[in-house]
């Protein structure tokens, strides 16, 4: 690792700290500016004002704001995150420990599928520009992009689970298998492998098919268009013409030389999408009853569960920072001209 790369990494890592700090601070105060509080949002008028006050007291919501703020910062630093204020007041570490793995387990196959479908069909369309296949690919990409994701999910469910029951409808694993399943990491694929529970592994993989295909397909539309546009430009550049003149095969030119050079914008977009997906797969998670973190965040925002929202967004910020750092490093490998 060169000195300059190391310095780049250290600077980037250090910059993450103020970024996360500013973000969580904003969330902390914005959540409290919003009308409504956790007690009333959850219990409504069922408790009297005195009872509501007693509950606020118990949850520590009556303390001065600055004390709550510093407590919260300390919780973040010690990676404790405190306990949620609603839906059972469980430690947030436990709640996210259950939900984050579920989301990641859904997101990774989805984004892989997005990349594979998006990039290859985009490149293929560019190669066959203005031929019928180009139009068909572009049309399909607009179609999958514009169909609401939950609707696509429902259609898939009705076709592949209800009418032709070959795939499970929802959830992460078969109900009966889950009854006897030992979860260690909450990444069910890993847990199934660790415990050598092959039927469970099969069940988890089958349960992943519909949600990840739905999510992956819906996102691929953007990548098809992004890849296609960049490829068209790239295919007109001098080095491709030179390559053609030397008699390099068209496929090699397109899929190796041109595609490699269009990777930078695509990778940036993939990185961003992955980060967004962590919090933004709400609709897919809802349609497939996937106990992920996107649904969790939306529910907790509605309930004004300050601590849960703060901690979740804080963790997202860390993820985003980490992923964008990873992307920056990857650039250097893809394009040797990039030096830090």
């Amino acid at each position, binding site marked *: 690792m060169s000195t300059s790369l190391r310095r780049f990494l250290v600077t980037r890592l250090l910059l993450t700290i103020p970024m996360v700090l500013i973000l969580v601070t904003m969330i902390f105060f914005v959540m409290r500016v919003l009308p409504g509080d956790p007690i009333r949002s959850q219990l409504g*008028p069922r408790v009297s004002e005195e009872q509501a006050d007693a509950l606020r007291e118990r949850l520590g919501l009556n303390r001065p704001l600055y004390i709550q703020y510093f407590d919260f910062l300390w919780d973040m630093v010690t990676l404790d995150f405190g306990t949620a204020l609603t839906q059972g007041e469980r430690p947030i570490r436990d709640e996210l420990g259950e939900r984050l793995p579920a989301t990641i387990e859904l997101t990774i196959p989805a984004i892989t599928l997005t990349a594979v479908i998006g990039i290859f069909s985009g490149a293929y369309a560019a190669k066959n520009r203005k031929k019928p296949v180009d139009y068909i690919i572009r049309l399909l990409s607009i179609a999958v992009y514009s169909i609401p994701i939950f609707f696509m999910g429902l259609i898939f469910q009705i076709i592949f689970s209800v009418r032709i*029951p070959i795939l499970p409808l929802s959830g992460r694993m078969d109900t009966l298998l889950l*009854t006897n399943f030992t979860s260690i990491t909450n990444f069910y694929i890993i847990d199934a492998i660790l415990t050598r529970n092959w039927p469970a592994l099969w069940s988890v993989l089958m349960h992943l098919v519909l949600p990840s295909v739905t999510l992956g397909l819906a996102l691929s539309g953007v990548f098809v268009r992004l890849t296609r546009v960049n490829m068209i430009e790239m295919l007109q550049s001098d080095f491709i013409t030179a390559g053609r003149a030397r008699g390099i095969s068209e496929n090699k030119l397109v899929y190796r030389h041109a595609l490699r050079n269009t990777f930078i914008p695509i990778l940036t977009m993939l990185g961003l999408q992955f980060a967004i997906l962590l919090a933004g797969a709400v609709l897919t998670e809802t349609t497939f009853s996937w106990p992920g973190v996107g649904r969790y965040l939306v529910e907790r925002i509605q309930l004004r569960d300050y601590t849960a929202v703060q901690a979740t967004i804080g963790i997202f910020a860390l993820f985003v920072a980490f992923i964008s750092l990873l992307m920056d490093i990857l650039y250097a490998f893809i394009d040797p001209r990039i030096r830090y």
Partner: protein
Amino acid sequence: MKAKKFFVLLIVLLLSSLVLGACQPAAEVTEEPEVTEPEVTEPEVAEPETTEPEVTEPEVTEPEVTEPEEPAFLWTKNLRQAIAAAIDREEIVDRVFEGRNIPAYHMVPDGYPYATQPFFDKYGTRDLDLAIQLLSDEGYTEDNKFVFDLWYPPEHYGTTTADVMQVIKEQLEETGLMTVNLNSMNWAEYVDGFVAGDLPFFILGWFPDFADPENWLSPFASCLQSPDNGVNYCNEDMDALLQAAAASADPAERESLYQQIGELYAEDVPTIPLFWEPEFVSYRDGVEGVVVGAPFEFNYHVLSFGADAQPASGSTDTIIIGTTDEVNSLDSVDAYATHDWEVIKNTGVALLSYTPGTSELVPGAAAAMPTVSEDGLTYTFTLRENLKFADGTPVTAQTYVDHWNRLDTLEGQVSGLIQLYVDSVEALDDLTVVYNLKDSFGFFPALAATAPFVVANPATFLTDEIVQFPDIIDGLGAYRMVSFTPGEQMVLEANPEYFGEAPLIPKVIIRYFADPTTMSNAVESGEVDVAWRTLGPVEAIRLQDVEGVTVDKVDAPALRYMVFNHTFTVRE
């Protein structure tokens, strides 16, 4: 440099959000009084034209002149009655719910003890002429209409709320003497608004804590409780009647009192009941014993598979029940949500319980119905002999005393509900437990059938803390909870120590769904045997046409009603 600018920008953003935060309470304060500054128009009398010395003396009359004719409350009785007369529930139910919902002519649901229909008796389905007459009596004309705001939350009670509000607006404006301005606010803000008394007229929902008229009337019409629901209603006659009815343990006396309360309610209109929203339960062919009665209890132990059943699990030993509810707390001294109570009551038994599918109270953990002292202040329960928790720990009267102490000291969400009525609990001997009440409450048996009267096993539910998510529940009920994966599923197994008959299906798995559509697809495809709360009308109607699936309408005691804020003052 760029980074510097970026930070400056962020800090500015941060500060502005802080400033916004600081402004919030201030803004609320400025909104309020206005009325209290009674335009101290210098009393014209004081202008000393006549130069007579006496006149210039600050007369006693001065303050009287400026007094703003008492705080003028917006809702006079005539206006409330006019609105009650102008609303046509049948039309709301037909137009918005295609006849699925049930018009409510009283706050107390049909099928409950002492239910009557006073609003129907007084106003019929609708009395537009009476409404017009009452509004005219108040001095409103076509040129000088009564204008007011009507508020609703757009999401909390489902998207149909907006349609209901629109129909009500049309019905009220049909008098030609009213103009209704519809407004909406998200739920969190809405609750703050009506608790603070900022909303003049608004819709709310109610779901009972226990199956007695008391729980449907006092929260809205008693001087003490009505402010909590934003009603702010106080009428001495009503209070006296409510207290007398609550205190009495004599059914005949209670019936007569609740009859009078109903009449006064329709006459004085503290709130206006609109309709009951039914629930739906759907199950696959061969599933038997799905009965949900007026107290809205779903008992798993009476479920069974018939000969033609094809269980989702592949075995008649296991039934899978789907729900879109979530678990909030499984500690009976804390839990205060429908699904939590359902789990608690299937893994435990309250002192009294209901015959499945009816509102008939029968002994639960108690061996017989309680004996009541003459003054109505003490209820004595005799426990069944040899009661044991699922782990074999014996349950005695002392267990009930400890349970009450936990409820009283830990201040869980539900504590307030029970503390309103119960003063103390004592154990006379191993089998006799005595509840001393704060007053005479004739409805106490119904209260003793609620989840907070399900004793929690001290091995799991520690004395000094609320345990909302135990790993297991070894209670008194037909089932014990053996595992729970939040957001995914809960597994219940037959309790070997259960005092009653063993459940027909020894294992129950509750599957948690995120939305009703997925759940209805799951019952259609046979992934679950039963789809329970909340299926929703759209899915229920679709499933009615699906072969192999039955859909039952359950008359749930879920009421929607309109609230007048009785202390809302007229603003210029």
